[in-house]
């Protein structure tokens, strides 16, 4: 099969997604700018409600009602602005150009059909001429992920374990040779060993196929293992974005610091893990003006109440915070060495 050696780049600009609620349209994602460099894995972390899943769906222009993309663009090399795609064009993009992998705990497979039959449905939907070659590719991909391809294709969802389903999901996202892959919580609800395997597979396949990958997760540990870049989201905004080692090693944004401090370690003092104060914001509870994080911030300024911080380049990354960095209390680096 023909392999492009250059992975496509993705540029999200001014993306705003609003949800229609009884109290009016509320933004879940507000004016997000995010660039995915070609051939990298970008992790997006944030608490639930930070808008990260909405961001992931926006990559396929698939925000579900009552939500809708109200402004901004998602430019993918070779595809153009996904937000403008409609109808058949959009359908052909999904799956073929942009692959999407669902959460492991969720069931992304039709329970009544064998994986093989669903694979053929996929092939027919995208006018694949050689269905036999498609099945061969699928088998090979499954084998690549440590499974008996022929047997898996002959199985139904209820005959597969969570980890196997997740790998089947990854197969479906890759088998049509999509170059941009979005993974939504790929390791949630899997046991530790399976998590590690899935993360290794993501990394390997990514390198092998020259993909541009976006991994959505609330698990900072998983991101540290697999991603090149890291974007931290809070209240529908990207508050910090940069190389993963830098962001986790010397976090600039107070929210990133809080997030890292909240991770309990397998080794080390449990008492060091500290939960973030306050509650994660929901659509309705976001402050109307100023910095969205200020109410939970340990060092907010007067300025934070009135002006929203603009993302700015600082220390090799983008940070949206009024506080001047670098900060006095850096988190110890050794866990991420």
């Amino acid at each position, binding site marked *: 099969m023909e392999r492009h050696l250059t992975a496509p780049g993705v540029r999200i600009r001014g993306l705003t997604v609003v949800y229609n609620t009884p109290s009016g349209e509320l933004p879940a994602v507000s004016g997000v700018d995010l660039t995915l460099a070609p051939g990298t894995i970008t992790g997006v972390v944030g608490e639930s409600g930070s808008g990260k899943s909405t961001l992931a769906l926006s990559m396929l222009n*698939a925000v579900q009602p009552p939500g809708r993309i109200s402004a901004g663009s998602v430019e993918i090399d070779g595809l153009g602005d996904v937000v403008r795609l409609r109808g058949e064009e959009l359908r052909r993009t999904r799956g073929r150009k942009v692959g999407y992998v669902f*959460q492991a705990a969720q069931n*992304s497979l039709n329970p009544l059909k064998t994986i093989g039959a669903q694979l053929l449905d996929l092939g027919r*939907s995208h006018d694949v001429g050689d269905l036999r070659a498609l099945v061969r590719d699928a088998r090979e991909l499954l084998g690549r992920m440590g499974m008996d391809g022929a047997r898996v294709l002959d199985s139904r969802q209820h005959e597969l374990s969570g980890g196997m389903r997740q790998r089947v999901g990854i197969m479906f996202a890759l088998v049509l040779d999509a170059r941009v892959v979005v993974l939504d919580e790929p390791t949630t609800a899997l046991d530790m060993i399976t998590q590690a395997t899935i993360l290794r597979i993501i990394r390997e396949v990514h390198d092998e196929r020259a993909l541009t990958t976006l991994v959505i997760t609330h698990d900072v540990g998983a991101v540290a293992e697999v991603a090149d870049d890291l974007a931290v989201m809070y209240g529908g905004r990207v508050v910090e974005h940069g190389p993963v080692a830098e962001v986790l090693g010397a976090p600039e944004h107070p929210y990133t610091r809080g997030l890292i401090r909240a991770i309990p370690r397998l080794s080390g003092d449990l008492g060091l893990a500290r939960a973030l104060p306050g509650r994660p914001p929901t659509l309705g509870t976001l402050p109307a003006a100023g910095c969205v994080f200020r109410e939970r911030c340990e060092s907010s300024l007067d300025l934070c109440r009135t002006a929203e911080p603009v993302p700015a380049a600082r220390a090799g990354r983008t940070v949206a915070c009024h506080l001047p960095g670098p900060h006095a209390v850096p988190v110890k680096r050794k866990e991420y060495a």
Partner: protein
Amino acid sequence: MTRATANRAGALARRVAGHVARGLVMIWLVATISFVIIREIPGDPVLAMYESMLQKGMSPDQAERATAVLYGFLPKGSLWEQYTGYMGSLLHFDLGRSLSTPGVEVTSLIGSAASWTVLPVLAGTLLSFLLGVTMGVYAAVRRSGRLGDLLALSGSLLHGVPVYVIGLLLTAIFATLWPILPSGGPVDVEFTPGLNAGYLGSLVRHAVLPVVTYTLASYGGWILAMKSNVVTVLGDDFILAAELRGLRRGIVFRYLARNAILPLFTILALSIGMLFGGSIFIEEIFNYPGLGLLLVNSISSRDYALMGGTFLVITIGIVVANIVADLLYSVIDPRVRSGGTA
């Protein structure tokens, strides 16, 4: 692979065996109830019959035998003897003889009535299933619209309204106020039975109102069930996943429809059972000579052997419908087929 197939066949056989066993218990229970009731009826019709035979000048032996033929058990003797006698003749498919149609065997009366019930019930079930499922999908997809709301409400109402109300209203409208259809009977008498256009046309015209009543009576249940199933499946992740994989709309719709329809097959059994029950009202209203009318008439003419037999056959019909529906379900749902209980 072969072992897996064998396992599947085994699981299926066990399911069917379970149903058959439960069905047999039900039939036995109903037979026992019939027996007890016939014995407990004030004035003991069996003994009364025996005595009237004696008065007609039969010898005690003859009278005893004649009564036994009528009711399927002896007029005298201990409870146990009577009971085993009754059950024994049931095992030989002997339901006794009718009193109201003297001398005719109950089985042959039931046999000729059965087709007048089974065919309209099946036609009604099929029609209401098709109609209800289609409308259910529509009501689910358009559930926030006015028409979808209206459809769901019509479903709740029709589901809630008793079948005789539907039947009476239909008759009042289409046979009394605006007489375009016959109000009762199975066929017009002026036609000679057989495969001629007049007879068949009359047959169909007379079947319209009963079948429509059956259809409307169970349509509400289907539309409600299908609507809620579609809404559930629409929220399932695999539908969104299929869309995000760029599957054609038609294929996504098939995924949706098949997953939503499947659970309905368990209701199919209940629906057929309900229609058998409903057949009593419908046949009474339209004077349609099926099992339901036979049961009501046997009660009003105190023809107890016929009553017991009809009751038993209606029960058997429901039991068989249950087994068939379950078989159908296990053939269609792979999760059941492979013995899983997902």
